[in-house]
């Protein structure tokens, strides 16, 4: 039985870790939740973004937070081009093809990373990497606190984009009725590519906020992608607020699971939630029935 005094710090840690998960899941909820593209390359693209942040820091002296200006745009471009010229073309609008194409992409990206970057663990050491914020007796690492607020801001921005802009309306229209959207003059391929690009652009933000407290290797995405899918299902497909809340819940469950069941078994809670949600509330916490 763990010491009761560490319960609150553990919950707070779970919330900040969950915010990092939510950041990765926000892009996925747009791609998977709204457009129903099962993007198996999400983890590999996160890895690519993390390498981008690493090389900007080491090669050009651009800090991870300064890279926030550049990385989301660069990753948006990667996502847009991938959807427009690779995934869209190769999948012929069939869901099962999309699944295979993104799986293939993830293998190609990962192996290229092994070839070019080797399997070294790379870390960006910043002056604030070891800084902590003392809150209710807990020491919260500063990079995680910043990531928490970054996740809130990103979720809010995506919500505004989807509900208050022309593009958001077009994305929702395409998601609901692809043929109908095409009939009313929406460039469906462009909207798909924009959505995919925005989703991958979110990974650019996630990478900038994750790198000061984590590392990058060619395999780093594996640890996040399954959790991200779980969060999307938990929060409700396509719900950004749901993804945020889902991320925080998963973070806390993982943290408390580790505390009470042991660190090795702690992750059982995450996947137990996944199964329970599918069984009893398949629309997720904030999802809507289709």
């Amino acid at each position, binding site marked *: 039985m763990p010491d009761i005094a560490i319960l609150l710090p553990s919950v707070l840690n779970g919330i900040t*870790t969950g915010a990092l998960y939510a950041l990765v899941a926000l892009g996925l909820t747009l791609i998977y939740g709204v457009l129903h593209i099962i993007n198996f390359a999400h983890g590999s693209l996160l890895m690519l973004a993390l390498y981008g942040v690493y090389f900007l820091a080491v090669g050009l002296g651009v800090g991870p937070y300064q890279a926030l200006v550049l990385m989301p745009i660069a990753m948006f471009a990667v996502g847009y081009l991938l959807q427009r010229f690779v995934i869209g073309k190769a999948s012929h609008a069939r869901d099962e093809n999309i699944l295979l194409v993104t799986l293939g992409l993830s293998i190609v990206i990962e192996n290229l990373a*092994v070839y070019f970057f080797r399997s070294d*663990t790379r870390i960006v050491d910043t002056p604030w990497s070891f800084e902590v914020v003392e809150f209710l007796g807990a*020491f919260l690492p500063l990079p995680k606190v910043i990531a928490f607020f970054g996740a809130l801001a990103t979720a809010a921005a995506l919500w505004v984009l989807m509900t208050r802009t022309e593009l958001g309306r077009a994305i929702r229209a395409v998601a609901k009725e692809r043929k109908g959207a095409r009939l009313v003059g929406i460039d469906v391929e462009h909207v798909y590519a924009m959505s995919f690009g925005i989703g991958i652009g979110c990974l650019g933000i996630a990478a900038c906020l994750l790198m000061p407290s984590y590392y990058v290797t060619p*395999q780093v995405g594996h640890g996040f992608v399954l959790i991200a899918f779980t969060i999307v299902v938990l929060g409700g497909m396509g719900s950004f607020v749901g993804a945020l809340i889902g991320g925080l819940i998963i973070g806390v469950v*993982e943290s408390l699971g580790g505390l009470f069941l*042991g660190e090795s078994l702690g992750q059982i809670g995450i996947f137990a939630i996944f199964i329970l949600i599918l069984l009893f509330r398949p629309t997720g916490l904030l999802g809507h029935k289709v």
Partner: protein
Amino acid sequence: MADNRKTDGLTKRTFLTAAGATALGAATGVTGFPSVLRAQEKTVKIGLIHPVTGFIAFSGTQCREGGLMAIEDINKAGGIKSLGGAKLEAVLADSQGKPDIGAAEVAKMVEGGIDGIVAGYSSAISLATSQEAAKSNTPHVVDVGVSDQIVQRGLKNTFRFGPGYGVIAKFAVDNLDKINKAAGSPAKTAMIIHEESLFGTGTAGLLQKELPNIGIEVVDVIKHANPTRDFTNIALQIKSKNPDLIIPAQYFNEYVLLARTLRQQKVQPKGIYSVLGGAASNYKFVKEFPDAAEYIMDCNHWFNPKSDIALQRKKEAEAKGLFYTYEVFLTYNAVAYLADAIERAGSTDKDAVIAALADSTWDKHGMPYGPTKIVDGQNTGAQPVDTQVLKGDIEVIFPEEFASASPVFPMPS
């Protein structure tokens, strides 16, 4: 997927030169076919199976680099002389960190006519690869895998040049006792943090049994998965139990995260004494986190810092841009030990090579071991050393005859 890499084979250019020279010789009737005969030279195929992708890819890649360095050096020095200068040919494979894939790669290599195998970094993979190699009686040298089961199954083809975790745990506990007593026995409690595979679990089990014998109570043992994304919970638990010593037994990535988190959570034990810690005897870790690494002690595989052979190899590895970690020099030595056996056997006959591996007295390894002495596949002279990070460098602190510095314990706050 296995791929063949000839380290000293025939290039297109040398082939064309040879063909040209032969044509000229045939036209003039002056020369025979010496250059073309190079293409028919016998090569000795050495399989290198390592997890170069997957969760332990950093270590696997380091192993591969060490093995390739050994092959390059042996070929430069004239190859296997008893086989007419036959060159070693590396056959590379990736186990992806999975024992079943490692075993499948062995089967493929055996079908391709492999002469000997060096594998597989982790204990679990080494168990699988050596067992598969045993089916065809293929000589198999384990480079790193520390589980004692590897050499306790009666497999005649399986040899290990480095020490197993039984020897390592005993060495670690004995020297910890010396360090602690020399400081007036400030350490009375310890917490063990270990990864969940065979290596971490086995090492932790041995330590848990041995530490009470030297008056150190194990207040908790925490097992974690690979990968673990966040160590805050573990750091909080350590903080609440406040042990005098923290003893990690982990792979590199998790060790780095743990060390960072301990600092963030302001955990200040009297000492961090890793046993086969993934990073405490790692120049990369020391370079990237000099502050977090300072004063950490580690009982791990290490070269003899007073050996010219070892220092020369370290220099060569660093010139290639490699961090000279234990994976590099252990795999280098595993390949060189196998090559020495083939040299003495004067053949690639599997029984002859296995017999030569078994009665090896090889001593060109630069390790703190003495000449090789094999009993039931295990090099009985193999031992770890204790290292400590001091002033940003890794120093050997035990055994005394190899020590380059004295231990600093307890850690200054």
